[in-house]
């Protein structure tokens, strides 16, 4: 990796050795000893407990709540219903931008999905509030539920995901299909999935005069603050949101959700601090989910296995009252070269909560279908799946025609395949067995995720004692952001990591944007890097303009910041400590800010994505169809790696999620009622330890000068993509049975 250059003041460089180090997460000991404070741990004098009452029906009206019975229960302080809910300054159904999701805040008696909050019971104890909620015994006027992708009223949404066009194409797909030597058409289904972060959505809300303090897990502190300010008609400055630790978010904590705001309303109603923690089953409705999809892939190749046409069509579902359309087809924009590509989306509206971003939204769902279809196409061509992918390698982004800012995918394929032992794979399925007679299958998938930048700010301070402070309201969801940002921050100041204090996780710090889209390290990291640069430039000016400094006159030559000293760049023997410079200037500290955002020029010129190749081995019992993923090797190219240890954990987490996607996760929706029948972690299966295969995540060197100052692409989501398809393809290779309805269950293999 080349040395990092300062953007604003190219005369100065900083030399640090923190980035690239496999530091152990700084929060690890706190977490394993229970010392890390999560939102629900917050203790405030006089705290009341609030519990949601949620609808059991999917659609209709609440006609009666036995408020008297609930209030009569010992310990119950109040019951909040549409009748007495404190007024809001903004309609919860208002939507002034696509990132503003409609909320259920007891605005009326209408029910529009199962588990919608219909009342809040507030009590002295959690137990009393819980029983109070049960005593409400709601009665309803019920209308039939609309559930499932076969619901009537298909339509083409205007946009999918975050404002992407629902339809896109280049070339003539129909002509490509018509004239092709080989064709594959297949339909894949993915179920609704729920984020199920270990930590449920929780809030402790506390009004003091005109000030509001909330402890709540957030992937977007400033947005949460802004949303609260809008709803409560408050000055954002009077709202403090604290979120030092999140027990996972995966997108479901990107926006403050209805139940959290109900906690604030309960505090307002009672005039006392209130804690509201969602029960696990209440998370299956008001806090988002990954929408189900039915994806139809049509592919065609010429006689040599070169793709001639690729059509990726997705049918998905949003709620009846808001828009989030899982952009599953968009994955086909970037991955494989074809003279004709078309992506399209349709949707239906069902009586569910509004779907939301969930780790690799669109990419995860789209990837398992596309990678399965690519595998089917390779099979139709009689080609090895890796050879087929290399044959159709995209040298430029196929849909846009833009060059890639960097793309080391070929190297990922090579290193991954070698490490995995791909060459030992039989071409035909159901050929390989282990010593116990279990069927063995190898499968692969290509991983991809866009390298995004949002907006972030940071502040860097150098203190008179020579140490530094760096602040940015970043979010540690468990990915180790605190540690990685501290590494960036230390290098941005040319200090050792022990010499700096990194402050994060509060809304009164510089706005760090959102921890999402795998862009947090890239965006906030760049802002931190620039803040450090700016304050070093200021420090350099103090020295180089002062005749008493050994650095006097070095303005043009520039300086190097290293280990707490500035060195003359053209004569490194001349140097001065940060402390000495500030001391002479009589300053206690100096500070500067930095900001980062998408560079429109780079974004216009280049397609920017991380890539990877995942290879999976599964074993299947030939009689029972029980499946176990036994080995996964992923090789990923994601630009600069700030902390290899944390990155490996992120990639492992994603790869395990891929196993989960292929083999386990699904919300069992009863199509008669729209209710999720497995709303608990006993029945909503995710892999347990025994399901986690031997994992290996290789990071392939990739230098990207275009994505951002740091050359960082994200690693938070890419691990799922490719992995789910690799596992699914391995199951086919083991058994010869192609299951297109995910997750793959044993009844589909033996039934």
């Amino acid at each position, binding site marked *: 990796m080349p040395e990092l250059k300062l953007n604003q003041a190219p005369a100065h460089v900083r030399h640090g050795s923190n980035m690239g180090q496999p530091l152990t997460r700084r929060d690890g000991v706190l977490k394993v000893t229970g010392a890390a404070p999560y939102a629900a741990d917050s203790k405030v004098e006089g705290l009341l407990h609030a519990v949601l009452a949620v609808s059991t029906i999917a659609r209709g009206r609440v006609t009666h709540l036995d408020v008297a019975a609930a209030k009569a229960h010992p310990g119950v302080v109040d019951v909040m219903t549409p009748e007495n809910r404190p007024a809001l300054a903004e309609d919860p159904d208002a939507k002034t931008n696509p990132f503003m999701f409609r909320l259920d805040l007891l605005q009326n008696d209408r029910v529009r999905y199962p588990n919608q909050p219909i009342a809040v019971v507030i009590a002295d104890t959690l137990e009393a509030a819980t029983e109070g909620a049960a005593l409400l015994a709601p009665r309803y006027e019920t209308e039939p539920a609309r559930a499932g992708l076969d619901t009537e009223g298909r339509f083409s949404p205007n946009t999918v995901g975050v404002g992407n066009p629902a339809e896109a194409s280049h070339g003539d797909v129909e002509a490509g299909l018509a004239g092709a030597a080989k064709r594959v058409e297949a339909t894949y289904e993915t179920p609704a999935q729920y984020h199920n972060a270990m930590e449920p959505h929780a809030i402790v809300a506390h009004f003091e005069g005109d000030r509001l303090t909330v402890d709540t897990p957030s992937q977007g502190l400033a947005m949460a603050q802004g949303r609260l300010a809008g709803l409560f008609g408050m000055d954002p400055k009077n709202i403090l949101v604290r979120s030092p630790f999140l027990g996972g978010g995966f997108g479901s904590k990107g926006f403050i959700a209805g139940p959290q705001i109900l906690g604030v309303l309960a505090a307002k109603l009672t005039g006392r601090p209130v804690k509201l923690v969602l029960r696990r*089953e209440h998370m299956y409705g008001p806090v988002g989910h990954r929408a189900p999809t039915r994806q139809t892939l049509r592919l065609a190749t010429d006689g040599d296995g070169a793709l001639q046409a690729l059509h990726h069509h997705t049918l998905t579902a949003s709620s009846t009252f808001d828009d989030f359309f899982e952009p599953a087809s968009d994955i086909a924009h970037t991955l494989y070269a074809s003279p004709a590509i078309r992506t399209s989306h349709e949707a239906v509206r069902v009586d569910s909560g509004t779907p939301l971003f969930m780790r690799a939204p669109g990419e995860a769902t789209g990837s398992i279908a596309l990678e399965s279809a690519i595998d089917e196409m390779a099979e139709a061509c009689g080609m090895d799946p890796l050879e087929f992918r290399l044959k159709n390698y995209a040298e430029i982004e196929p849909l846009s025609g833009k060059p890639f800012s960097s793309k080391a995918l070929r190297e990922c394929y090579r290193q991954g395949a070698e490490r995995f032992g791909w060459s030992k794979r039989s071409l035909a399925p159901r050929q390989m067995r282990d010593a*116990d007679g279990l069927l063995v299958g190898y499968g692969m998938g290509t991983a991809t995720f866009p390298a995004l930048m949002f907006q972030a700010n940071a502040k860097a301070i150098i203190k008179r004692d020579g140490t530094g402070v760096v602040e940015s309201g970043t979010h540690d969801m468990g990915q180790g952001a605190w540690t990685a940002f501290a590494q960036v921050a230390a290098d941005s100041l040319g200090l050792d990591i022990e010499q700096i204090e990194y402050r994060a996780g509060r809304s009164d710090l510089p706005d760090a944007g959102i921890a999402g889209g795998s862009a947090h390290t890239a965006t906030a990291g760049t802002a931190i890097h620039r803040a450090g640069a700016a304050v070093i430039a200021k420090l350099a000016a103090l020295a180089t303009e002062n005749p008493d400094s050994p650095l006097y006159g070095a303005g043009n030559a520039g300086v190097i910041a290293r280990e707490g000293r500035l060195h003359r760049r053209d004569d490194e023997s001349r140097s001065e400590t940060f402390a000495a410079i500030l001391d002479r200037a009589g300053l206690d500290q100096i500070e500067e800010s930095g900001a980062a955002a998408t560079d429109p020029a780079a974004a216009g010129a280049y397609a920017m994505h991380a890539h990877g190749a995942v290879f999976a081995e599964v074993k299947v019992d030939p009689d029972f169809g029980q499946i*176990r993923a036994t080995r996964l090797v992923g090789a990923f190219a994601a630009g600069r790696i700030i902390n290899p240890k944390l990155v490996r954990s992120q990639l492992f987490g994603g790869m395990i999620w891929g196993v989960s996607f292929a083999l*386990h996760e699904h919300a069992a929706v009863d199509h*008669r009622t729209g209710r999720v029948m497995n709303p608990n972690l006993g029945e909503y299966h995710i892999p*347990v*330890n*025994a*399901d986690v295969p031997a994992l290996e995540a290789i990071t392939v060197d990739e230098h990207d000068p275009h994505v951002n100052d740091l050359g960082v692409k994200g690693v938070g989501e890419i691990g799922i993509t490719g992995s789910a398809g690799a596992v699914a393809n391995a199951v086919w290779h083991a058994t010869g049975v192609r299951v297109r309805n995910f997750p793959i269950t044993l*009844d589909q293999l033996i039934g």
Partner: protein
Amino acid sequence: MNRFEYLRPATAADAVAAAAQPGAAYLAAGTNLLDLMKGGIARPDTLVDITRLPGLDTVETLPDGSTRIGALVRNARLAHDAGFARRYPAVAEALLSGASPQLRNAATAGGNLLQRTRCTYFYDTASACNKRQPGSGCDALHGDNRLHAVLGWSERCIATHPSDFCVPLAALDAVVETHGPAGPREIPLEAFHLLPGDAPERETVLQPGELILAVRLPPQAAEFAAHSRYLKVRERTSYAFAVASAAAALRMEGDRVAEARIALGGVALKPWRAREAEALLAGQKPDAALFRRAADAALADARPSAPANAFKIELARRIVARALTLAAAGTPNRIPALPASPFAHQTGGAHHA
């Protein structure tokens, strides 16, 4: 959770008196009961905590060679009791294939027998369920019923009994010792759980207040030790209930099966003893065809309770055949690291007693 009285009686007699009152329930480890209370499925007025009752937490060998497992013996303790595991390896393997280590450390033998079905409609108070609310209907019948019963079900209820422990117990003729308002009695485990019939709310033959004191394995049960296995097919490698399971135990004489025991789990509302299949094996030389015939006999009366669970019938046959094959090969020296799993290594040393 509703408000309830909490009692901690000092003697079994006091416990029985307290629990015989309407609305009372015994509390053992609570791994099932407390979940049911949190979900509003069970709303007892009184909890009678039996965990401090004396004398119920031991595993004893009786003079006649029977083994008596106290009702409060924790699942993990029993499974890890080396003497017990050597004599009843299929029981130990079944225990270790259930739930998670944390749950097994808590869960008691008595509670395991009385754990309620895992039918998701039973757990969802918004759904109709004859078992939870007699006469309300059965939403599973036309709902998400992929894993429901294929034996012994009725139109009133198609749920299964989820216990692993009970499956080898049923195969080995275990007896349940109880103490009720009418005094002590003994109930064969096979007759302990009731099929749904017209009254799925009646789950066992226990009378109100009747306390399980122990589960007893008769002396003959140990004679199968050399050829006993439990096999459990699941939707994930661990920490999942059985899609279907089987315990197979053989008493070999030379190269012939002198006596066979077979029971199935996850297929009916009780552990399902397969006596016809057992009879087929007696006196025969074990081979694949014989085991397949036995498996066919075990499932002879099976019929799907919904199209979605039809696959379980053939699956269960294959499980029975495999369990018999594994049992014939000999009980392994150590319980595999993945107990009862098809992914337990099948190669490796067997123990010959």
